[in-house]
């Protein structure tokens, strides 16, 4: 005989929450105490360094002399360079306009419920790059020319990332289609292309772009150094994009292509109207994740001598006018915050897309 027992009491309240989530058993209690000890050991010195012992006022190196914390005046003094590089001071408004339009366009795409996303996306991919190019490099409509050597800072990082992303998507789609093609020669070429790029480190590709590409072009045909790097980055990233897209192509039920064929659509029409819209939709989160790694990888152009965000910060860290360990770390932390803000928001967006797609799949 079992005795009747009252149902277990439903506990609530903060004390109960702490018991269940932090002190559930001996092991968990020890773990909690260890983590608390770790945080107590690490956070106060860190907070001290970043806020309390940090120098907040001043505009020269002297302000930070002898300080035992971050040197924020350095960021204040260098913010122009960190954002624009050596872009001519009087022309910086052009970069601002490009930033502003890009930001508005992206916000339009990301904020749910706004109309005509297709149009905005189309403009961002076609008209916007052209306008941005004309505005940034100048030479038309009376705008003074600003050579790409003067582009730098966050501006250059965003240009490299945007070009890499926009250019690698179509190339990646073509490569992915080629890899699934029924023509053996095309398939072999695409497989070789994708695997070679994916097999080598990006820095060797950038080296190749800066020292090999000029060799393979006819005498006299000079390529802008930035353009060479951009081509390398776009092709490199296209190989990774191709693998993302291929996953989408493989996930598509065979009935879709068969249905398209039954309707009398040829290969190209079936691909453009039936296969790609569905395949790209399913791998949208993967594409955004790819953009994140691409965005981080733009920092590699520092190694081949560009002054992107990373390069500007690194130049500042070794700059005699400011150089001190605190200044270097302050710069790294500031750059890390910028990179993190971009990448983290992209990863949140990707996670949201994933949820929305999963929602559509649920019946």
């Amino acid at each position: 005989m079992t005795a009747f027992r009252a149902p277990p009491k439903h506990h609530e309240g903060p004390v109960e929450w702490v018991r269940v989530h932090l002190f559930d058993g001996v092991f968990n209690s020890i773990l909690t105490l260890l983590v608390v000890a770790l945080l107590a050991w690490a956070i106060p010195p860190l907070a001290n360094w970043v806020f309390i012992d940090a120098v907040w006022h001043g505009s020269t190196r002297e302000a930070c002399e002898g300080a035992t914390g971050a040197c924020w005046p350095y960021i204040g003094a260098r913010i122009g360079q960190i954002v624009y590089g050596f872009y001519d001071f009087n022309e910086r408004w052009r970069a601002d306009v490009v930033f502003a339009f890009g930001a508005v366009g992206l916000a339009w795409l990301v904020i749910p419920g706004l109309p005509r996303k297709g149009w905005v996306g189309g403009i961002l991919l076609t008209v916007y790059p052209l306008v941005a190019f004309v505005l940034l490099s100048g030479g038309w409509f009376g705008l003074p020319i600003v050579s790409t050597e003067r582009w730098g800072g966050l501006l250059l990082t965003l240009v490299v990332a945007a070009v890499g992303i926009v250019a690698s998507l179509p190339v990646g789609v073509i490569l992915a289609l080629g890899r699934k093609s029924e023509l053996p020669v095309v398939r072999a070429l695409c497989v070789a292309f994708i695997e070679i790029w994916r097999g080598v480190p990006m820095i060797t590709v950038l080296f190749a772009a800066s020292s090999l590409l000029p060799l393979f072009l006819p005498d006299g045909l000079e390529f802008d150094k930035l353009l060479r790097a951009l081509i390398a980055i776009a092709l490199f990233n296209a190989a990774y994009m191709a693998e993302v897209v291929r996953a989408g192509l493989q996930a598509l039920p065979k009935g879709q292509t068969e249905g398209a064929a039954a309707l009398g659509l040829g290969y190209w029409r079936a691909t453009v109207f039936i296969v790609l819209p569905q395949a790209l939709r399913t791998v949208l989160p993967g594409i955004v994740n790819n953009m994140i790694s691409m965005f981080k990888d733009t920092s590699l152009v520092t190694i081949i001598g560009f002054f992107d965000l990373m390069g500007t910060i690194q130049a500042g860290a070794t700059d005699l006018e400011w150089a001190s360990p605190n200044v270097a770390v302050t710069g790294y932390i500031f750059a890390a915050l910028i990179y993190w803000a971009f990448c983290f928001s992209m990863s949140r967006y990707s996670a949201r897309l994933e949820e929305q797609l999963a929602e559509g799949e649920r019946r």
Partner: protein
Amino acid sequence: MAERLRHVWWRDTHWRSILAQGLVLVALAAIAAWLAHNAADALTRRHVASGFGFLEHTAGFSISQTLIDYSEEMSYGRTLWVGLLNTLLVSAISIVLSTILGFVIGIGRLSSNWLVAKLCTVYIETLRNIPLLLQILFWYFGVLATLPVPRESATLGHWLVLNNRGVYVPEVMFQRGWQVVAFVSILGIVGAALVRRWAARRQQLTGERPATWWATLLLVVGLPIATLLAMGVPFSLSLPELAGFQYEGGLSINPELAGMTVALSIYTAAYIAEIVRAGLLSVARGQREAAEALGLTRGRVLRLVLIPQAMRVIIPPLASEYLSLTKNSSLAIAIGYPDLVSVFAGTVLNQTGQAIEILSITMAIYLALSLITSGLMNWYNYAHRAEGIA
């Protein structure tokens, strides 16, 4: 009435595909020929030698860390090996460290302990979203370079010494007769494994598992210790000691290697943690519930039920993560760690100017590493495919 199409060869898909592919090949060959012509032209104009003869020439520069015998009089070919071995060294150490850290954090993120789970989430979301290059520069210029001079080193007794010349740890020195101890220890482990197999067979046959812990203890711990004492302890520890202005003795890790290892391990661990988490989540919930219903403790549920099943999902992406770690180690050039890219595609390229040959060799080596890894992975997937599970 539709007009009947006459059958002509250019409408035949078979011929059309051959024609299309032929055109692609001809176009590619033409482009390749054009590029080769330009390159040959450029090389003669710039008076750059070509061919792989330079590999025999004297290098004439020194390398700060060499795993094999190397001096300035040796050849460029030798520097290639030095660089490759340094790449493999930093990758191997980082792979071990990032795997340990990654598993701890990945499991921690799924912990029922709120604080642990949140801490692991913050770790992953922070480190994954900051470029690796920035992290390498931070550890090298921001942390390791700001460590005190050797005289004021941060020390943990003689076990760990940190200063701006690098990291020092005790080194185990092997004396005469250590091979015997090593051999006996291996024998002990093999013996213990045999005992376990015997016990497992007994369990299969009779349903009763004989106690093996004492035999295991004896074979794995007792036997080696007895041999060690019998041989008169053929090991000694070399501890780092301050001698004048620098430390001597012990195993010294230069700041470049230390910076690369720390940055690569910490960065990659965030990715491995996500792979581990996805793997653990992929195991059907019923498995865990059934294991708990059988009364297994939390640790055993993880060790005996969840991890073995999760491994099948974890291993393939883990291997490609190791591969990208190895490729990422090429960022060593930013802080001057003498890896393959830094030594060969950096210094040697600048000295000889033979960009085509050097970059081809460098890329081919990385490509070979990739192909070997993916070959092993295909073999693993084939050997461990889930049979009977749809």
